[in-house]
């Protein structure tokens, strides 16, 4: 068993007169499969990034490494996440449906990692 420590920091001076400075961390036990940070070129057709049948409870990291092109991330058929250039996401996934990825245009690279609890 290994320990994964994800930390998120949100900061803003634009969203109110009180400055936002939020930091949260977690300690996750990882006992099964991992895919350490990897990259894949997307296209405008759906790519099955993670097949639900291959995983159980997991934590997913995604980052759009492109400078201009956006990416869509779908869970089954539901359009859910749009990663604009340079954006990232981190979330728990129960492998209840496939995670699909496609680009708005071209062949931008998606960085991804998955950690199965």
């Amino acid at each position: 068993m290994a320990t994964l420590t994800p930390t998120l920091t949100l900061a803003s001076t634009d969203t109110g007169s009180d400055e936002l400075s939020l930091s949260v961390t977690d300690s996750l036990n990882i006992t099964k499969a991992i895919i350490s940070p990897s990259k894949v070129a997307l296209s405008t057709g759906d790519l099955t990034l993670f097949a639900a049948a291959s995983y159980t409870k997991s934590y997913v990291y995604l980052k759009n490494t492109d400078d201009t092109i956006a990416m869509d991330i779908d869970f089954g058929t539901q359009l859910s996440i749009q990663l604009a250039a340079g954006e990232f996401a981190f979330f728990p996934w129960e492998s209840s449906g496939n995670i699909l990825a496609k680009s708005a245009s071209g062949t931008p690279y998606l960085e991804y990692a998955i950690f199965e609890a």
Partner: protein
Amino acid sequence: MATTATISISSPDLMPGSSLSIAANTTLTKAGVTADLTQMETGVISLVSGTEYRLGPLATEMADDAHDIASYLYICNTTTEDATYYIDWGINETMIGRLYAGDWMFIPWNASDDAAEIEIEPQGGTNTIEYAFFNSDFILPTAAA
């Protein structure tokens, strides 16, 4: 100035012979432009189990194209209870994952239409969440009367 999100993911023992260290940061901007986001809603809510709740606005409660891009959602389940306490989260009746005690998530949310609402359902008992929602143009619902 700007609104920024930074993530680090690390592990000293996940892979034999090497430590894991992921880092990324992004500036949250308005849809399709480089102007900084300026609107945020944040709070702490205790949620009783047995009910599915909507978190954040509907697409029709956001102006112009703000719902298609430039919406960001952070949720943390701050409960300290055991593993029987968790929050199912999903979009449009698609259950995606579970936030156990201390777990958090951050996503750029694509609220393409009203059906793409963020849904959360506490399990096990009362769970408390901390959340923040960033968007360039969310608007208040019209009063019913």
